[in-house]
């Protein structure tokens, strides 16, 4: 690891304006985490135009802060209102709200904040050590490896995410198709432009994402909004007792590891890891019946894991140039806008961006730990602001923001079209996430598949016969065939109980 670059990164982060952007980012993150409705990917999408007018490092520091800050904010509503602000804090509801009802809301929030901080910090430390190694290793990757990685990424995002797998795969493949709109880089032929000059350069990812995530979610919330007032539980004594800390220390440790591991996987991220960490605690607990009735570990584990995962999901983006989830896809877009190509060369070519972002997370999490406890009261009061008042403000930010990118009203209309698509997708049970992610990966994927075919003289098997790409493809097949395998196992399990037991040991 280049210690000088690491230290320079810290110097950069502690510059006053970067600290300010970090603070703004985590505050916005906490805020949208508290408010049900807009998630981190939608918020980052809406704020993407800002990167056109701010210095690259500051912009990325801020947008990254939104993502991990949201993990902290979501906890507050889960505990106090039984209303998860984020999908990754849904499991926190079970024990967090139970604790709140026993008058121990403060304990739950305190443990969650400490767990979040520990999980994130452990994750950043590992990332600091591991990311340069991965990047160095990935420098040898050729188009075959990138094609394989991108393909695995699309598949994992579609299969691991919530919801129906076939629908997620359809959304992802349509995302791949959208990426082909415009002039073909290799032959110069126009594809799916229908004679439009504006479409010749392809669909702008920022505008598509703002539409699908931002406008889509704004429209959806407009319909789903329920005008009920929330009365949060009282919060007193936020500092957990020594007994609580002792009880949850194991959960925090395991949550950090689980979160880090699952966060690196494409499609894994914060949601999956919070579930896995909670399940682990419940499984190894001597008294699993306590879970759901106010077990401190039931708050500590998922909160630690979702923050660890939110942090480690930066690794594939910063070292391979492959975004692991929708929010990372937004950051990928932001980097491209700033003319920074994410990938293994990033750490060498733009150490300021790489170490600036990584090191800003140390600072950001410290800020979050310090803010989240004293500011709980303030954030609770923000919940009293009616959604009806926030909705037109987000709508205006989105429209004016997208206009400023190219000073073009055509962009507004493209965004609205994708907003309508995003809204209708949600109504029909399709998640827009895989589509946006596949759109990003689609650009990488087609490019690298075609390059590989040219290198391998038209032999598609050449894609899988190199050692690294072969391993990635093996993983791809495993993921693709897993549901089928599970189905077979389940069928075998159905007629008799005995073989099922054997299956468990073999799986």
């Amino acid at each position, binding site marked *: 690891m280049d210690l000088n670059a690491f230290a320079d990164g810290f110097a950069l982060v502690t510059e006053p304006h970067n600290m300010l952007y970090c603070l703004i980012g985590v505050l916005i993150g906490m805020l949208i985490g508290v408010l049900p409705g807009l998630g981190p990917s939608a918020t980052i999408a809406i704020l993407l135009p800002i990167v056109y007018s701010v210095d690259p490092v500051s912009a990325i520091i801020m947008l990254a802060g939104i993502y991990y800050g949201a993990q902290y904010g979501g906890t507050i509503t889960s505990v106090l209102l039984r209303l998860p602000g984020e999908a990754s804090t849904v499991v926190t509801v079970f024990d967090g709200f139970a604790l709140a009802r026993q008058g121990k809301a403060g304990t739950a929030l305190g443990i969650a904040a400490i767990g979040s901080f520990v999980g994130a910090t452990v994750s950043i430390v590992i990332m600091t050590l591991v990311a340069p190694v991965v990047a160095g290793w990935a420098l040898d990757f050729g188009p075959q490896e990138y094609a394989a990685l991108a393909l695995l990424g699309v598949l994992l995002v579609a299969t691991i995410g919530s919801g129906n797998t076939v629908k997620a795969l359809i959304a992802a493949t349509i995302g791949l*198709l959208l990426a*082909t709109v415009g002039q073909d880089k290799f032959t110069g*032929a126009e594809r*799916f432009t229908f004679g439009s000059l504006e479409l010749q350069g392809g669909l702008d990812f920022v505008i598509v994402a703002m539409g699908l995530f931002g406008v889509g979610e704004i429209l959806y919330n407009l319909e789903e909004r329920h005008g009920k007032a929330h009365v949060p539980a009282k919060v007193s004594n936020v500092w957990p007792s020594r007994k609580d800390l002792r009880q949850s220390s194991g959960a925090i440790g395991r949550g950090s590891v689980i979160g880090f591991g699952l966060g690196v996987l494409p499609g894994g991220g914060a949601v999956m890891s919070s579930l896995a960490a909670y399940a682990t605690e419940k499984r190894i607990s001597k008294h699993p019946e306590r879970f759901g009735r106010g077990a401190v570990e039931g708050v500590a584990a998922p909160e630690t894991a979702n923050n660890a995962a939110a942090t480690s999901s930066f690794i594939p983006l910063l070292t391979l140039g492959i975004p692991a989830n929708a929010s990372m896809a937004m950051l990928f877009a932001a980097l491209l806008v700033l003319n920074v190509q994410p990938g293994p060369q990033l750490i060498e070519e733009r150490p300021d961006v790489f170490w600036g972002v990584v090191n800003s997370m140390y600072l950001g999490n410290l800020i979050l730990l310090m803010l989240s406890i004293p500011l709980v009261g303030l954030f609770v009061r923000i919940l009293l602001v009616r959604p009806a008042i926030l909705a037109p403000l987000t709508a*205006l930010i989105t429209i004016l923001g997208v206009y400023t990118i190219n000073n073009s*009203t055509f962009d*507004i209309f493209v965004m609205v079209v994708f907003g309508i698509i995003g809204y209708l997708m949600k*109504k029909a*049970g399709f998640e827009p996430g895989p589509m946006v992610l596949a759109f990003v990966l689609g650009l990488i994927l087609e490019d690298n598949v075609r390059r590989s075919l040219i290198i391998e003289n038209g032999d598609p098997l050449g894609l899988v016969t190199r050692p690294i790409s072969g391993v990635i493809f093996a993983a791809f097949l495993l993921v693709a065939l897993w549901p089928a395998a599970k189905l077979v196992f389940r069928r075998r399990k159905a007629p008799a109980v005995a073989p099922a037991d054997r299956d468990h040991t073999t799986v």
Partner: protein
Amino acid sequence: MTMSDERAPRPESGEPDILAELQAEVAEELAEERPPAGGPAYQVVGALVTLAVGVGGTVLSYGYGLGTLRKPGAGMWPFVVSLLITALSLALLVGGRQLADSERFTRSSLLPAIGILTFLGLGALMPAVGFEIPSLLLCVIWLRFLGGETWRSTILVSVGAVAAFYFLFLYGLGIPLPHLF
């Protein structure tokens, strides 16, 4: 019964169950606030739309020229992708009718429809008359008619918001939005 006794000392055999249970619980938690499911008609329409995308994509990309594997044409990649969309949509059409993940359109679906119109209106009017008046109108419509706010808070918030955006974009960020004043 003997089976379950055997299993007791090996808690890890319960692993998939806890996770599956948890996922079901989470889904339930999230579903609580959702409107009623749309039913088979929604699923069929959804699948038909994506099928049309797939078929359309296949036909168009075939027209762009497939080339050979050695020298792939412009249409090769979108052709393969479109075929996948088509196959997956057919699978959804056949097997997905009973899914419960769609949401019925209700009277309140009119709200997003009006919202879309205000977006388009702002986009169309901004180059002609500047952003201030259309933005103000958008705020008033969203607050008073879509959000059911009182006139008092509608006026306060919309005037405040437009003023804030005016200073933020024109002075704070130095971005030249088309403006009247």
